[in-house]
């Protein structure tokens, strides 16, 4: 029986006066990749940020791995096992690539460094620029660094927000391959506007609109459902 | 394009305008003005007149600070310095002009305005461009510099001793013009009325400024700088404008203050305590309200006047406790604690809180048909 590693039930989020999430309910199954879809401003990023505790939920419940985390602060959510790759590839530009990774390792244990081997296999460039300031990396490399950094932190779930944004198609293909490798090690929730990437990586999907989940199902089914894609995603 | 029916917004404006002279606020202002005019004639007490004159001056100084802090969101620690520049302009010109004449006062006013404008433009051009918080740091440093300059440039300012001077003609302390309804008409009284007239004009000017299109842009910038920029406003220029205007008014207040005391020294018109007083007054009165300045200034000045009596009382109640005595001597400590508590728990001040309550009442009335 598939088991949910993360489940949101009726989550509301307010930012200042604005009521952004208006009752989001969704589940991510352990070991699978779940994609959040929806047009700009639908509330996808806010959903991820609410799970992280960055924009705390004002109502509803969030359960991660059997723990209620809707009141937890970001660092506690991270320590519970959620890794986060924000929308704007928040690599720390003034730190070297190495320092970015050391920061991500809460304990600099041999296991963590062993994990780096997997990372170097997936993202060879990061090894090349090991001692360089992250600020000099290209957009694609920064995105790789951000994802790898979340992965090395020994998380049970990775939240990745629009990794393909602003990247060249060839880089996106590399990213797709890398994420499909990562899927074997960890559960992923991916926010993605690039439907090609979403369909290549995701197994399950949820479509958000105006702060609510309006549709959900299996990715295979969505790929062929032109009507749905037209209606919510504006893809012909 | 048929009729010229007013839009709802215009209707609302017309409605407000028609009520302009009947609103309770206006009546209160009228009553206040009447009291200020009649006060010294009805109740000739020097102590009260002194208190009221200082409250008037500080009310305007605080309101002008509110333009910078409350309406523009810029923290200037130089407001006291501009006050001092104005005060020293009057003091030095009157002191060094022999014999002192009326036009010297005018000259001093113009000089105060000129110097403060130039200094404010230079400071804001240098530091506002970067980040509003820079302005706080730079003004703090420059204000301290002026304070020290007041001490050390003693060939001009007479240093710590300060400058005492005479006012010209009918404003001079020795001038006397007989009695009116039993009240001595003398130089002090005329200076009081001069202060009243200038303060009233300045206050009206401040209120007009806030309600003008410029004032509305300033509020928009304060509330959302990015949006204002996106709408095409030159944020930097508006900030400079507001800072310069507020500083200019402050220097004129300083000029009035010097005239009232006929004396200035670095600590009273340039020092940190003055700046702290202005901060305290604006917080207590309420940021972004302009009128709060009146309440804040009145509260602090009255408290200052009566605190020595309170201290004596405290001392006589606890004659044995030495620590208690020292605490009572340090009334700035009490003000400081009051100030922190107001920033934390009463950030809107008296007028801001009252306005919120009135607004809530109005909404409730509207909600009930």
């Amino acid at each position, binding site marked *: 029986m598939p088991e949910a590693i993360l489940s949101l039930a009726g989550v509301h989020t307010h930012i200042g006066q604005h009521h952004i999430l208006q009752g989001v309910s969704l589940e991510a199954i352990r070991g699978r990749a779940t994609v959040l879809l929806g047009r700009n401003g639908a509330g996808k990023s806010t959903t991820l940020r609410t799970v*992280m505790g*960055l924009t705390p939920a004002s109502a509803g419940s969030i359960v991660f791995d059997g723990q209620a985390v809707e009141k937890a*602060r*970001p*660092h*506690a*959510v*991270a*320590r519970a096992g959620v890794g986060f790759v*924000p929308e704007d590839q*928040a690599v*720390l530009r*003034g*730190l070297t690539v190495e*320092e970015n990774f*050391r*920061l*991500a390792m*809460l304990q*600099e244990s041999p296991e963590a460094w062993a994990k780096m081997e997997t990372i170097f296999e997936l993202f060879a460039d990061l090894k090349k620029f090991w001692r360089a300031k992250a600020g000099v990396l290209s957009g694609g490399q920064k995105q790789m660094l951000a994802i790898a*950094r979340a992965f090395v*932190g020994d998380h049970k779930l990775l939240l990745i927000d629009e990794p393909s944004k602003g990247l060249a198609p060839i880089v996106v293909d590399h990213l797709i391959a890398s994420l499909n490798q990562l899927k074997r090690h960890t559960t992923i929730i991916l926010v993605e506007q690039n439907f090609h990437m979403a369909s290549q990586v995701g197994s399950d999907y949820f479509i958000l609109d105006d702060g609510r989940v309006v549709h959900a199902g299996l990715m295979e089914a969505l790929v062929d459902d032109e009507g749905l894609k037209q209606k919510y995603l504006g893809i012909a | 394009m048929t009729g010229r029916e007013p839009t709802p917004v215009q209707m609302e404006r017309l409605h407000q305008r028609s009520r302009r002279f009947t609103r309770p606020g206006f009546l209160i202002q009228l009553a206040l003005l009447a009291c200020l005019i009649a006060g010294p004639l009805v109740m000739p007490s020097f102590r009260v007149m002194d208190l009221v004159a200082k409250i008037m001056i500080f009310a305007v100084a605080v309101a002008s600070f509110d333009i910078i*802090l409350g309406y523009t*969101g810029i*923290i200037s620690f130089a407001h006291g310095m501009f006050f001092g520049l104005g005060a020293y302009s009057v003091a030095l010109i009157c002191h060094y002009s022999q014999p002192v004449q009326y036009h010297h006062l005018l000259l001093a006013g113009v000089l105060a305005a000129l110097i403060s404008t130039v200094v404010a433009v230079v400071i804001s051009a*240098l*530091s506002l*461009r*970067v*980040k*509003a*918080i*820079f302005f*706080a*740091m*730079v003004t*703090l*440093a*420059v204000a*301290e*510099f002026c304070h*020290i*300059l007041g001490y*050390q*440039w003693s060939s001009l300012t007479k240093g710590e001793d300060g400058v005492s001077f005479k006012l010209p003609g009918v404003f001079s302390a020795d001038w006397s013009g007989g009695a009116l309804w039993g009240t001595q008409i003398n130089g002090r009284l005329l200076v009081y009325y001069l202060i009243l007239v200038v303060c009233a004009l300045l206050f009206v000017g401040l209120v007009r400024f806030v309600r003008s299109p410029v004032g509305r842009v300033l509020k928009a910038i304060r509330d959302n700088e990015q949006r204002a920029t996106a709408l095409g406003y030159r944020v930097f220029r508006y900030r400079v404008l507001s800072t310069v205007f507020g500083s200019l008014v402050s220097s004129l207040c300083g000029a009035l203050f010097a005239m009232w005391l006929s004396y200035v020294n670095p600590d009273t018109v340039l020092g*940190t305590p003055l700046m*702290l007083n202005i*901060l305290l007054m604006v*917080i207590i009165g309420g940021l972004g309200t302009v009128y709060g300045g009146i309440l804040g200034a009145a509260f602090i000045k009255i408290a200052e006047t009566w605190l020595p009596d309170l201290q004596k009382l405290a001392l006589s109640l606890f004659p044995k406790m030495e*620590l208690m005595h*020292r*605490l009572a001597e*340090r009334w*700035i*400590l009490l003000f*400081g604690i009051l*100030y*922190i508590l107001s*920033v*934390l728990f009463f950030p809107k001040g008296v007028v801001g809180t009252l306005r919120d309550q009135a607004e809530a009442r109005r909404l409730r009335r509207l909600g009930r048909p």
Partner: protein
Amino acid sequence: MDLAPDAGQAGRRWAARLAAVSIWLLPLLAIDPTTYLVLTVAGLAMGMLLFLTAAGLTVIFGLMDVLNLAHGAFFAWGAYAGFAVLNALNGLGWVETGTLGQGILSVLLALLAALAIGGVLGLFLERVIIQRVYGDHLKQILITMGASMVLAEVIKVLWSPNNQTVLVPLSFTGSYDIMDVVINKFRVVAIVVGLAVYAGVMAVMQKTKLGIIIRAGVENREVVQTLGYNINRIFTGVFMAGAALAAVGGSMWGIFREQITPAMGDENLIFALIVVIIGGMGSVTGSFLGACMVGLAFNYVAYLVPKLALGANILIMVVILFIKPWGLMGREQ
């Protein structure tokens, strides 16, 4: 300049360097070399003590985005704590009449007391007041200003509003005379301590995990949180460390000047602000350079035209703001 932004950048950098070097060398034209050396040592000593305050101010600003105007008050409290300890130890005969060992020990204890009081005050202020106003510059500035005033007043209540004379062990007074260059002993101590603190802070920032976390936090607080670090605890720790450094600086200042007043915190804050503006907010190295510039300029000018000493520093600040609005090492935001 829009066409060649890089050239403009480089030009500004060189102009800033030129300004820095000219502050250091220009006075040689007007001052004879022996006096110049004495003044240089005095200026560096003053710069080091300024650096102790400015370092905390700049890191607190960079990491927490808080302009802490109560930072000068920590300086004053450190001075009074050191003063109280030296007074108490003098009662044991350790200070004015003690041996060399006792003298050194009493100065160390005075600095330790300052460190402790700075840490405690920093903890209190951050937890009780500043944590309520994170993210609100206006309230921060208003409230730390108030805290600064209250802390200075409490000094007046506990000790006295007037100046106090600090008792200094004999071994720390007097001066070395090296070929007519008279160097006050405590100035040497100040320079050594300042350099050691700078080296220590830089080592922590560059080499340790804590340093990585702090530098990362200066750049992006949110990322640090989502990587699993409790940013509030780091804030408290950094605030305490900054306060403690300022307090140590204050107590050294007291021993150096042998005079302390409740207003010394405000004065020091002004200097530290100038240093931080010159150096660039958030940069430790910038503060170090800025502190040296301010200390040197103050001493040279004080010798040439005593009354313009502070004015010279304001002038330097204005010039730096003009050529590099973000300060020598500041990052544009």
